């Protein structure tokens, strides 16, 4: 990818630290903090921008026949397990527990609760979990025979990752819009690379000084270190990054080649019987929204006219 690693002059970050950015957003009424780090309430200004970003990104769609789906923020547990996320990122997983007992079990739960004990020990895992990535609920619902021309899908939804932080970019739950293709290795790689360029252009139109960087996911533990090194060395993942603070770049989207990982685990196969490959590009809707407020300020009326126009504000 020619854009990765190029030495270009960087636009200075608008804020020195994530703390400065968070304080500006709170002072500007753009977000409201809660008792838990990484969980904040969004204002209507935030939501207007986010919906504008989603519309802007959707406007770049090329495969106009692709099905579009908006997922709820929960997904079937069995399908989640097939993604292997528990194997690769156990520290980020969010599983949902529910109460299934009767009066007797309820009394026992309340007793523990009143004593300040662990009442959740009286719950049982539900048939649903929180999706860790937006395309995860997709694969289990697709026809397993992948046609020669490949399959294009678009999906939008919530993604949960348990990594509490005061950095406003590190939200525990956030929305992503994804363009997914399942097909041959060539079809998947072309999707990833074409969309990376298209994605960078789409974000540049919003006045964001974005660049691409080869990246790796935060795989867990010893095996994870090898997966991360492989991912980086094989250039499977590119992030679309922008400097919002001087501390670290913020990824506001990513372009990923999964090889046959999901084809293998979900039984999606090509005509010759081999597992299908796949690729996705994810636009981090909440992260892009954050970046827009960081770069253009907390007063929507003062944003550049071309940006307001692109977001239909």
């Amino acid at each position: 990818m020619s854009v990765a690693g190029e030495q270009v002059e960087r636009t200075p970050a608008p804020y020195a630290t994530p703390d400065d950015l968070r304080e500006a957003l709170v002072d500007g009424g753009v977000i409201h903090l809660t008792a838990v780090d990484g969980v904040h309430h969004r204002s209507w200004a935030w939501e207007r921008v986010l919906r504008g970003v989603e519309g802007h990104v959707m406007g770049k769609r090329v495969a106009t026949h692709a099905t579009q789906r908006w997922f709820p923020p929960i997904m079937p547990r069995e399908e989640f397990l097939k993604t292997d996320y528990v194997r690769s990122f156990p520290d980020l997983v969010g599983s949902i527990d529910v109460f299934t007992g009767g009066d007797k079990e309820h009394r026992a739960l309340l007793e523990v609760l009143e004593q300040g004990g662990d009442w959740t020990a009286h719950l049982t895992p539900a048939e649903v979990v929180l999706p860790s990535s937006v395309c995860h609920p997709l694969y289990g619902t697709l026809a397993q025979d992948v046609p020669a021309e490949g399959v294009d899908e678009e999906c939008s939804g919530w993604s949960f990752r348990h990594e509490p932080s005061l950095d406003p970019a590190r939200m525990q739950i956030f929305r992503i819009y994804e363009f997914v293709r399942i097909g041959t290795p060539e079809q998947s790689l072309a999707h990833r690379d074409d969309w990376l360029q298209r994605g960078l252009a789409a974000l540049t139109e919003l006045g964001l000084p974005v660049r691409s960087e080869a990246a790796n996911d935060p795989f867990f533990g010893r095996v994870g270190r090898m997966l991360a090194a492989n991912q980086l060395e094989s250039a499977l993942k590119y992030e679309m990054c922008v400097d919002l603070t001087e501390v670290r770049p913020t990824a506001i989207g990513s372009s990923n080649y999964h090889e046959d990982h999901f084809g293998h685990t979900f039984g999606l196969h090509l005509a010759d019987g081999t597992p299908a490959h796949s690729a996705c590009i994810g636009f981090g809707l909440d992260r892009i929204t954050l970046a827009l407020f960081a770069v253009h300020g907390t007063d929507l009326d003062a944003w550049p006219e071309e940006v307001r126009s692109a977001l239909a504000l």
Partner: protein
Amino acid sequence: MTQSVTDTIRGLLAEHARLGVDVSSLSDTDDLYGAGMTSHASVTVMLACEDEWDLEFPQQMLKKSTFASIANIRDALSELGVDGASVASA
């Protein structure tokens, strides 16, 4: 001895590498990634080697190139003192 370590590696690859071709059609130096082994599959191969020879690959070996060919895997095992993995002992 070298032959048996190589055979065992080939057996582990047949079981875990999810190659697009028959392992027997590959030479010891053929690129396993080129033959269809994915990143996730290479990790499974790595863990299978650790189980087979009761060892742990040190962090500096946990990279793509270590598992790129049968010869590379054999070299890594040799470095970790696996009997019969050294080419010199062939």
